[in-house]
């Protein structure tokens, strides 16, 4: 097990290193990196001076080493819009994004799992066909368009929920969260549902496929032959088997939730790091863009690592094979 974790850690570090290289050279290929580090108001002489003082007149491999050294120390430059460390800026917005993504993930499971199970266990019923049609639509609908429709329906039309912003937050262990206030939940409901829609469709498909497969397995028939109740068979025997692929896929999809939050946060004016990224893009705040990419890559890699560990915890067969290798 320890060897397994070590190997995965090494792979993770390799990916982060590769991304550092790509980002560094990408920035250099696309434009003069000096513009990452100076504000657009400076004149040519000031820029040249800054370039010299930062070592940007040196050969590219030397610059790379400097970039790497700073990156390892957690320094990816200063935002020239906000004047703060780019990393700190991103990290300060991260809790809001993670909160949104987690609620969306939760919704995907709570809404998608029962629907998918139903569609898988009663594949011929009309309701199942309707569920599958919704899930196909969920894959086709662009996220931003669904967001607009949600605002139109629930905020403008019905007036049930607020359309924009984050609700009242409470500080827990130094992290601001809006999940402990009614106002917070009212605000998070629509954007989280918007973000969750694609994943709801995904969970429906996975759960349906899994349930259809599991329902035909002998162990389900044997469980029925033991005289177990329907709820015990579905809730324990089938669910525990289909949770393995669902947890794996959803874990890997958490990264994509964070990525798609750029769209959702912009529509619902949610103060997360996705909205920050979009602002940075429109204002060409390159240090923030670079910092965002690096933070997200680290997040992805961490999630993949966690998913592997959870996976081996869920499936006893994996645990054994990993332990024996």
């Amino acid at each position, binding site marked *: 097990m320890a060897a397994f974790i070590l190997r995965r850690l090494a792979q993770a570090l390799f990916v982060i290193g590769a991304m550092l290289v790509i980002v560094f050279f990408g920035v250099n290929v696309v434009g003069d990196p000096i513009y990452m580090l100076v504000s657009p108001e400076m004149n040519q002489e000031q820029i040249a001076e800054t370039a010299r003082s930062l070592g940007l007149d040196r050969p590219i491999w030397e610059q790379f080493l400097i970039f790497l050294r700073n990156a390892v120390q957690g320094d990816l430059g200063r935002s020239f819009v906000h004047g703060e460390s780019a990393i700190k800026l991103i990290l300060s917005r991260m809790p809001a994004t993670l909160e949104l993504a987690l609620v969306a993930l939760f919704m995907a499971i709570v809404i998608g799992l029962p629907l998918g199970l139903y569609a898988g266990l009663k594949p011929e019923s009309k309701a199942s066909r309707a569920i599958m049609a919704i899930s196909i639509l969920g*894959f086709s*609908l*662009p996220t931003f368009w669904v967001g*607009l429709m949600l605002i139109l329906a629930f905020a*403008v039309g019905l007036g049930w929920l607020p*359309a924009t912003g984050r609700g009242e937050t409470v500080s827990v262990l130094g992290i601001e969260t809006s999940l402990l206030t009614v106002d917070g939940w009212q605000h998070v409901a629509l954007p989280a549902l918007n973000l969750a829609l694609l994943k709801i469709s995904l969970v429906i498909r996975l759960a349906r496929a899994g349930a259809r497969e599991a329902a035909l397995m002998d162990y389900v028939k044997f469980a029925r032959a033991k005289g177990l109740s329907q709820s015990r068979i579905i809730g324990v025997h089938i669910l525990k088997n289909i949770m393995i692929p669902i947890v794996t896929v959803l874990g890997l999809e958490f990264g994509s939730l964070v990525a798609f939050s750029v769209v959702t946060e912009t529509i619902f004016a949610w103060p997360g790091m996705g909205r920050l990224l979009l602002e940075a893009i429109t204002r060409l705040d390159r240090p923030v863009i670079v910092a965002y990419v690096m933070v997200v890559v680290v997040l992805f890699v961490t999630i993949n690592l966690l998913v592997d560990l959870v996976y081996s915890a869920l499936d006893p067969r994996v645990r054994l094979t990993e332990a024996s290798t």
Partner: protein
Amino acid sequence: MSETSLPPVTTTPAAPTREETPLRRFARSFIEDRVALLGLLVFATIVLLALAAPLIAPQNPYDLAAVDVMDSRQPPGAVAGEGFTMWLGSDGVGRDLLSGILYGLRISLMVGAFSGLIAATVGMTVGLIAAYAGGKVETVIMRLVDLQLSLPSVLVALILVAALGKGVDKIIIALVIVQWAYYARTVRGSALVERRKEYVEAAQSLGLSHARTVFRHILPNCLAPVIVIATVQTAHAISLEATLSFLGVGLPQTEPSLGVLIANGFQYMISGSYWISVFPGLALLMTIVSINLVGDRLRDVLNPRLEK
């Protein structure tokens, strides 16, 4: 007892009365699915409408002289100052929304088609090279493909347009970079299978050049999965372009695709002028859904192994 009086135990399918060409058989099994047929008809209509936009649109939305600010934010069915009925209403600067959508469709479809074509060409070439060259070349290419596919497309596209800037050409480049890896992976997969087949060995033993073997023999046999990928990816590209344009980092106001139209309507939505965003959105939706329906059916017809 006589053998001839035995009832048939197994049935043999009736021999076709007339030789059926593969294309005809393909078309026949495609239209068996009514929903897919509907999707195809809707998509064909959309393409025709987009192509014919200059002929059928009541107004040229690019022609500043034709647009009257007095007509701005008129609800569906209102009559424009010039006398024609604006069936879908008008936008914030007085453009007829129906005309805007027809012209917007042109741009959205063009971006989708071009990016798809280029990505397919690039991806297929790279995929074929990987499959045919093998060794280190293949490893490097496939690592790149894996890395690309592990990143969410929306994020990659965002970062790319951040670096490249706005414009039709830039957005097409970004979409190509987002899509090529899907084609490369697919083509490499089926090319590896094809390569091992006898006719390739036969072609090589005849002394045909590598290029000829690849393009005349391997490539045509990889086309079925590529067509399936192409439909799904084109729908995805159109959706992605609309998303980027909606976010204000895709196409500029001078190239009003559907995404730009929706973005322009967003600010008026809260105050009740819902149609400015809703109708272009519905057009976008119908385009994407119809392509996906066609793609789903193509997958079933072209690849029986992947039915579910």
